[in-house]
């Protein structure tokens, strides 16, 4: 579900964060740890590094909370911005560290063969996304996986909405050309 509107879903936590309530930080993690970490992982392609950046994002949020003014932005959008910029900084400073080793995910279902195919498909797609240029990957991640609005995502990237849409178009065009056509047909079935 795309997040629109001006109310901040985290407005209940913010006063407690400002007051230094560690339970509020734990609650914030309940809500956003997985999505922030997923954003970082898709940007960096390295699980350990993505967890380091995720830790930095939450600690920065904790640190600056006393100066947060409600109503100016959503807290989650701010956190996504910090995460995206941190990831882009890391990518600029070093060669991309993308491995072909996508971490195994637990498989507790009885249909192991089907799940193996699904997992391989997932890895193929992850590899294709990892090969996108950094800003295209960021645009795609913010739109598709973070479900941010056009306005929020373009502000995070510091580009115009038109430039953001151009990044999205190029990212999807590249993926259509990179992914195995059979993969796309199978997915559509």
């Amino acid at each position, binding site marked *: 579900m795309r997040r629109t509107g001006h109310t901040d879903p985290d407005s209940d936590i913010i006063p407690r964060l400002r007051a230094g309530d560690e339970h509020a930080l734990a609650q914030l993690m309940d809500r956003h740890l997985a999505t922030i970490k997923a954003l970082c992982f898709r940007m960096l392609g390295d699980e350990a590094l993505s967890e380091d950046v995720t830790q930095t994002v939450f600690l920065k949020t904790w640190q600056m909370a006393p100066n947060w003014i409600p109503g100016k932005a959503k807290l989650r959008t701010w956190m996504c911005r910090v995460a995206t910029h941190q990831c882009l900084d890391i990518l600029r400073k070093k060669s991309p560290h993308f491995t072909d080793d996508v971490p195994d995910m637990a498989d507790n279902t009885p249909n192991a063969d089907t799940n193996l195919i699904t997992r391989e498909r997932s890895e193929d797609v992850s590899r294709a996304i990892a090969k996108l240029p950094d800003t295209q990957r960021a645009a795609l991640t913010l739109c*598709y996986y973070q479900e941010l609005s056009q306005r929020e995502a373009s502000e995070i990237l510091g580009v115009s909405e038109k430039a953001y849409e151009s990044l999205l178009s190029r990212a*999807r065009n590249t993926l259509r050309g990179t992914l195995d056509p059979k993969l796309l047909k199978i997915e559509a079935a």
Partner: protein
Amino acid sequence: MTEKNSIDLIQRYGADPARWPEDMRETALQILAAHPDAAHQEAALDAALHSAQAPMPSDLLRARILREAKTTAQDIPTALTNYGMAANDRVKSPFKINATKWGAVAATLIICGALGFQALSPAAVTTPVDDAIWQEAAADLGLTDLYGWVEGTDTESSTRNEAGG
């Protein structure tokens, strides 16, 4: 919106209308109803994207963050010195020192005193939310008397008198 615009829209955002810009959604839906093939192609890519799930955070990550937060100082609220500037605007606090929250309260009160407290009116530079936080911080330190001085009253007895006691 033209047919080409609608197709461009789904090629950018995918086939799920929930991801389309809100102001274009309704018109695009009407136009694309006549072009199911374009939507189908993008839906296939959407499904592929959906299959690429990121690994969940480790339990260790959560524990690390909570542990580090215990030793990470929160920024000093800048309301008394720089009203209106928010962390949302990526303001870098000049007071990033390794101090506890209560040490930060004491430091800011000392600054107020050095600047000539009579010239400052906390009510003019703080919001009700900031006032509540300062009250709580001061009370926790047992600084009611000092906070009363900050507010312009000298002693607890003065406070009681003004309250009509």
